[in-house]
């Protein structure tokens, strides 16, 4: 990358220099991805970093973010893995449509997702109204609401990843388990799940990262109450108006946490590129 003119090794490819029409946009693309986080590091108020990090509001937001992202990933696993299994293994009419519906949150602007959640689960929403009347449960503007908003936007990542792993898995192992007397549930638990574990983990990591960065649906559905619904991304956005330095510090923390977790998991278990 550093010396594109002379750096092409003769062993690779056709032994010729890669064309600049590809190398140039590649370098620009790389720069575009790398420079903003680098800028964040450059502009960080390193001298006051210690005291700012100890700010209870920062710690509160961090704690809430880690808690809700992890809870959302848990919900995604409990609901998303079975959903992926059904999509991959049970042929039913309309499966294609269902598969398309599952991916809707991927393309839906998160704010729209938040509005939709409000309409359904809000205090006057279709389901929320009934939840409120029957159980006295209100979801909007609560920590549970944050988890719901994050689950909504993150679950497709898990479902897609796990469904792909299930489709790629060798079904004959499941047949072998069946001939040994395993019921379908035992087959799933003791054979299928361990075989697709890397796919599940990859999905969970993507899911967690997406939940951690969730902003639009959260602020729409859960608002931003410090200590209750104000997660890191929300805190960053709000701090930017009043105290830009605080926003940089919060961003740094978020960046550090996601890079740390992703590299740790990736080196240990993930084979994804």
């Amino acid at each position, binding site marked *: 990358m550093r010396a594109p003119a002379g750096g092409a090794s003769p062993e690779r490819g056709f032994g010729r220099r890669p064309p600049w029409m590809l190398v140039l946009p590649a370098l620009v693309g790389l720069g575009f991805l790398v420079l903003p986080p680098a800028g964040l590091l450059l502009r960080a108020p390193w001298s006051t970093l210690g005291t700012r990090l100890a700010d209870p509001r920062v710690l509160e937001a961090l704690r809430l973010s880690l808690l809700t992202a992890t809870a959302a990933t848990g919900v995604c696993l409990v609901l998303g893995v079975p959903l992926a299994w059904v999509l991959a293994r049970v042929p039913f009419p309309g499966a294609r449509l269902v598969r398309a519906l599952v991916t809707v949150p991927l393309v839906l602007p998160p704010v729209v997702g938040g509005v939709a959640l409000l309409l359904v689960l809000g205090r006057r929403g279709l389901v929320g109204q009934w939840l409120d009347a029957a159980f006295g449960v209100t979801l909007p503007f609560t920590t549970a609401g944050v988890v719901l908003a994050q689950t909504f936007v993150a679950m497709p990542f898990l479902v897609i990843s796990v469904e792909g792993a299930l489709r790629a898995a*060798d079904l*004959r192992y499941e047949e072998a388990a069946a001939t040994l007397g395993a019921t379908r549930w035992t087959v799933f638990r003791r054979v299928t799940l361990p075989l697709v574990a890397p796919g599940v983990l990859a999905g969970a990591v993507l899911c967690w990262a997406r939940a951690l960065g969730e902003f639009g649906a959260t602020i729409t559905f859960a608002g931003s109450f410090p200590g209750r619904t104000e997660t890191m991304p929300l805190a960053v956005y709000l701090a930017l108006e009043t105290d830009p330095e605080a926003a940089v510090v919060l961003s740094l923390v978020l960046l550090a946490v996601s890079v740390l977790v992703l590299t740790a998991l990736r080196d240990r278990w993930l084979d994804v590129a």
Partner: protein
Amino acid sequence: MSRPDTPMTTGREERAAGRGGLEARLLVRRGDFALDLELTAAPGEVVALLGPNGAGKSTALRALAGLVPLADGYIRVDGRDLHRLPPERRGIGMVFQDYLLFPHLSALENVAFGLRCQGVRKRETRRIAAEWLERVGLAEYASARPRALSGGQAQRVALARALAVRPRLLLLDEPLSALDAHTRLEIRSGLRRRLAGFDGAAVLVTHDPLDAMVLADRLVVLEGGRPVQRGRPADVARQPRTEYVARLVGLNLYRGQADGRTVRVEGEGGARMELDTVDHVLGEVFLAFEPTAVALYRSRPEGSPRNVWRARVAAVERHGDRVRVRLQGPPLSAAADVTPAAVAELELTPGARVWAALKATETRVYPA
């Protein structure tokens, strides 16, 4: 190991009613393909399904295991109807083609898997599984993962895993095909020993006649989803009834009309040819002879009574220390085995014309 009381060479269905073991009629339809097979195996007996690719051997085995639904028919093992049960409730042991040991479990856990499914306590399953590993000579590999095992070891673990649940029917799908040629011989005899120690019925699928001959007490040859020949391996090898079996066992085979000591066979391109034999038979027959029984000459041989015909050399190929010459009719196509010296002397190259001779005493004639 018990053998069936009578050699079955007539293609009639054998009944094992009341004797226990496997009794089945398998009808499976898949698109254009249809399998229709009646199959029995007595307790302690090993029956091999032999046939070319696509003959329906594996489908038959999968139908027995419940992995493929029956369109019609029945499966009975020791008098118990299995065909309506799902695979996990059939109590059948199956060894798959590439063994399919669970990669995330150790050898011991693989063998213990079936017992766990039966609800046996964990400690107990580990003890029984360890015994089975011991029995197949792999005690020291208990904690090894499948990918650390050689092909032969994996096969033994797969066999132990299938047998650990004490099945009354054992199914083996090409149990030796994943092995390379020089370990195969040893593993084959090991498998034979272990099968001999199994007291339930066993059905083995293979496309290798040698595996079938060594491992099975009885053969069922499948072609196009139907049985074309049944019998003891030696009988099938001696008296093949289809082109496929004849080729497998290396015999020349013809169908014809016998009239005392001559057989009129249908040759190439509608040509008829009369062959002298020593067996006295009448009616529709098969006539078979070994490639080594055919002698080749450049000019018409005189003298002793033999069948003589003229043919064209279609191909010359090496076959062990002999050379196999493929003769093309009319009137008769055949394979002939000669020495490399004869090839040079007779200038046997594709396209050459030679005289072929066959002694009447070298032919075998049996009813079709």
